[in-house]
């Protein structure tokens, strides 16, 4: 039904757009972040109400039912997901958004008036399909339904060029003449491109690709706004496209990587395609009881959590260990690398979930000078973020990434599952250092043993 005239519709869409800008603005600071999300969801709600009141729509019961189905699927999943699985869920939501944009563009083709509109349709269709397929593959990688390593095969580069050419050809036909088969072809090529884009990316770079695909979906949504002549879609999509691009670069910078290097690095062999082979050089390993003594009689202990802690679900145990050590009058803090976990800022979320006080979390820049006065640095399930190769080995894939300088501490203890290298697949010299002790085992099991041993002191 049409209750709102075009002027009011435009005003309400403007309000929604401002809500989205405020949401992103709010998310830039921990104090205002939650309010920002609330404002953003209010803006989205307002926009949905506006579209129902301002357009002549048929099939409204069906549409409402579809919205109910979508909410009923997504909300419980989003509520229940493990915090460690957050990255793949974000990838999944991003993918379905891209898919929705592609479908919208496909259905608008018969209504396209001129070549400009068909250009926007071609763009939305292709980018939406890339984002959908790419995100689904990212999901599969993060969920470990397939290898997390970069997948490269002979002829990948040639295939990529062929697919890109086919995309251009199908896109050109679609823009000039607009046949439905060209649209379908472009969508299929888009799906193939998404897969080819993500296949060669591996390891720690996968989350950065989520951010990039997020920006892609934003652009697809913006283009769909041009197709439908809807200003809100244009503004919201462009906003996400632009902020997503900046965010992708910021994430890559935090890891000392370039976005081009991440996407095309595997072609040149300069990616994180390191080895998975366990080293057999001698290391000093020890028992939980010995390490408990080391910790229990220290004055200052710094805990360095990594993704291994999160996969083992050891956040709560490390929080208990912290409490047990503090009871003995030991100064305990956490040194958090910006990319600890699987996404920048991920570790903060994981530790917050385990009720670790916010004040105990020390960011890298503040933590590094403190290691010189630290008695024991306890590294739990982290490897690459403390690997001195980032500073000392120019050829290394992680060279240039800022690291936590745990080597400055008087003693270093690693809790590790095995001698296998980390995500980036590079050997860590620090493991072979005389002041380093290792305790092998699942992070949670090791922490539980340590906790019991500390309490028994």
């Amino acid at each position, binding site marked *: 039904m049409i209750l709102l005239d075009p002027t009011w519709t435009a005003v309400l869409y403007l309000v929604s757009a401002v809500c989205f800008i405020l949401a992103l603005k709010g998310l830039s600071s921990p104090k205002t972040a939650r309010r920002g999300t609330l404002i953003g969801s209010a803006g989205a709600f307002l926009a949905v109400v506006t579209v129902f009141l301002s357009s002549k729509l048929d099939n409204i019961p069906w549409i409402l039912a579809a919205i109910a189905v979508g909410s009923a699927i997504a909300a419980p999943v989003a509520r229940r997901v493990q915090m460690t699985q957050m990255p793949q869920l974000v990838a999944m939501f991003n993918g379905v958004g891209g898919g929705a944009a592609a479908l919208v563009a496909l259905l608008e083709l018969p209504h396209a008036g001129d070549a400009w509109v068909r250009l926007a349709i071609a763009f939305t269709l292709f980018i939406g399909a890339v984002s959908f397929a790419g995100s689904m593959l990212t999901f599969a990688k993060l969920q470990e339904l397939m290898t997390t390593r970069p997948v490269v095969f002979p002829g990948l580069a040639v295939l990529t060029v062929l697919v890109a050419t086919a995309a251009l050809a199908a896109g050109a036909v679609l823009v000039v003449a607009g046949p439905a088969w060209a649209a379908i072809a472009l969508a299929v090529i888009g799906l193939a491109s998404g897969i080819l884009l993500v296949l060669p990316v591996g390891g720690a770079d996968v989350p950065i690709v989520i951010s990039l695909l997020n920006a892609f979906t934003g652009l697809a949504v*913006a283009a769909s706004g041009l197709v439908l002549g809807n200003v809100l879609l244009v503004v919201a999509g462009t906003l996400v496209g632009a*902020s997503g691009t900046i965010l992708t670069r*910021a994430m890559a910078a935090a890891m000392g990587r370039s976005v081009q290097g991440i996407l095309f690095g595997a072609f040149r062999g300069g990616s994180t395609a390191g080895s998975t082979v366990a080293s057999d050089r001698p290391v000093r390993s020890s028992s939980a009881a010995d390490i408990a003594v080391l910790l229990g009689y220290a004055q200052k202990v710094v805990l360095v959590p990594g993704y291994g802690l999160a996969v083992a679900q050891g956040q709560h145990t490390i929080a208990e260990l912290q409490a047990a050590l503090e009871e003995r009058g030991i100064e305990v803090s956490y040194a958090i690398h910006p990319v600890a976990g699987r996404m920048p800022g991920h570790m903060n979320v994981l530790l917050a979930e385990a009720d670790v006080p916010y004040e105990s979390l020390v960011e890298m820049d503040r933590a590094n000078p403190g290691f010189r006065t630290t008695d024991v640095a306890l590294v739990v399930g982290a490897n690459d973020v403390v690997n001195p190769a980032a500073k000392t080995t120019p050829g290394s894939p992680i060279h240039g990434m800022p690291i936590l300088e745990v080597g400055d501490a008087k003693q270093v203890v690693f809790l590790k599952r095995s001698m296998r290298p980390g995500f980036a697949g590079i050997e860590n010299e620090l493991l072979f250092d005389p002041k380093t002790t290792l305790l092998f085992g699942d992070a949670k099991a090791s922490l539980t043993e340590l906790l019991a041993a500390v309490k028994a002191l």
Partner: protein
Amino acid sequence: MDGVALLTITVLAVFVGFEVVSKVTSTLHTPLMSGANAIHGIILIGAIIVAGQAEDTATLVVALIAVVLATANLVGGFVVTDRMLEMFRGRRKAPADAPGVGEAGER
């Protein structure tokens, strides 16, 4: 709306997008990515318009799939972002602030 006006809006939105996230700390990269992800779920508007104009069953079915996908993006995106941020909050103040944060044993 004519092309130039749309172009103007697009270009300004690009700059706003660059500007609002330029100073964010790495701590918040994950929630910010998730929040931006939720915002592009607004493609739901487009899906609703297309579904509302569908004249044959096939078009309607495809459009309704788009509505389901877009809703999942929008609703799921905001819920998951809020859940992450909920955890950031609780501990910034004393535990006295905690009741009301995660009701009914949410953690």
